[in-house]
């Protein structure tokens, strides 16, 4: 193996159909170096690897890897700045760094994917598979699934914290009884459901050859309304978040919803830019599917979070009935 490794990393990928215990490593290495495995050739200047079926290991998709870029390093530095600035109470800098991170994520999305449909491409050994941009279970899809699993754990911890404080915190109930604006909370839930439905509309429009931009614009308006509703609800929290954990808990739940709606907006902005750049087509609809998944998650967690905020007065009243 040359150091540093060549840009293609491996000259070709092995095909192993049966138990490989008896095969000679030396022979196999020579065969792979001769390019006799999968992807033993170059095309379009791409860095390629194979995506395989989860249980059979058969080639399923051709993954075109992104080119080396400083964007991940810049995003990591901006993230570190945001976190450190928050720790040292430089909140304006935190906000600026958070906006920079958002911009860098959208920018990174503009160079991902392929600009046209390719259909199945030969990968060697007489096998042809589509590029990852044209299959359902592509790496970005699984990346978002696992991100949402981690995010769901964070949300479950937040809900747990609310109930834990309710049961175990000293000085509960608070002197001021919470009285969230029910209509505003319900409106926030409705607009988030509208945004999720609009994301589905955009997918349908793309699949039928129509324009998805109208649906995307509707989803953006709905998310802006949801953010405004959450901000208004945070502003009206009693007791104030700085004075009692009850208010702080409600603020944290509402902030969670608002942040997810804001990230949903970034998804939609990226969708518009990538549609304009020709990076999205009926065959390459991953962007819209990712947006739909994110907005579904946002709507579901919003129902739970806002439902919990609305239930806080009842929970507080129950505490008063304790023996």
């Amino acid at each position, binding site marked *: 193996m040359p150091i540093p490794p060549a840009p293609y990393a491996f000259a070709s990928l092995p095909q192993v159909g049966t138990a490989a215990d008896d095969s000679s490593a030396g022979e196999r290495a020579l065969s792979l170096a001769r390019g006799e495995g999968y992807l033993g050739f170059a095309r379009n200047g791409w860095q390629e690897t194979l995506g395989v*079926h*989860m*249980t*059979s290991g*058969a080639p399923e998709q051709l993954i075109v890897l992104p080119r080396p870029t400083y964007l991940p390093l810049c995003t990591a530095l901006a993230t570190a700045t945001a976190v450190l600035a928050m720790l040292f109470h430089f909140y304006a800098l935190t906000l600026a760094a958070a906006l920079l991170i958002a911009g860098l994520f959208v920018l990174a999305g503009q160079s991902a994917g392929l600009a046209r449909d390719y259909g199945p491409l030969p990968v060697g050994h007489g096998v042809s598979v589509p590029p990852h941009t044209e299959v359902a*279970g592509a790496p970005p899809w699984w990346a978002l699934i696992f991100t949402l699993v981690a995010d769901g754990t964070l949300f479950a911890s937040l809900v747990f914290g609310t*109930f*834990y404080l309710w*049961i*175990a915190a000293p000085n509960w109930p608070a002197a001021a009884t919470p009285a969230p604006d029910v209509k505003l909370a319900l409106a926030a839930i409705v607009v988030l459901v509208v945004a999720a439905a609009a994301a589905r509309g955009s997918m349908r429009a793309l699949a039928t050859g129509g324009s998805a931009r109208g649906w995307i614009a509707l989803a953006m308006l709905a998310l802006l309304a949801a953010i405004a509703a959450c901000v208004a609800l945070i502003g009206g929290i009693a007791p104030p978040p700085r004075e009692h954990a009850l208010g702080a808990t409600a603020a944290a739940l509402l902030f969670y919803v608002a942040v997810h709606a804001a990230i949903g907006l970034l998804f939609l902005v990226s969708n518009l830019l990538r549609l304009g750049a020709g990076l999205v087509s009926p065959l390459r609809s991953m962007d819209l599917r990712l947006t739909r998944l994110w907005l579904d998650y946002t709507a579901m967690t919003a129902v739970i979070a806002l439902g919990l905020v609305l239930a806080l007065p009842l929970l507080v009243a*129950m505490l008063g009935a*304790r*023996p």
Partner: protein
Amino acid sequence: MSARPVPPRRLWWLLAGFGVWCSALVFLYAVHAIGCAFAWPAGALRLALAIVLLVHLISIGWMWRDHWAASPDPSLDSTGAFLHTVIVWTLIAALVTIVLTLGPTLALATCV
């Protein structure tokens, strides 16, 4: 006719048994905390905990019975039979884990 590969969604069954164990842990913890906070009588709290435990044991036992009774799908490749065995034993392991780790809570003092 060549055998079909195992559909990836069947892999979720590997999580089923210990997913139920997680649910049992969360619900027992929650019922116990709420019961103690609201000073439920010890008998009523113990009964509630026993019901929560029983519901989880029944659900995991149900899944185990269904998988145990069914033979592996013959149209799937050899991974199908292997996965079937692993799922059955994962469910058994989860059932035993529930009994061993959560069962004793019924015998302890309810609230300290």
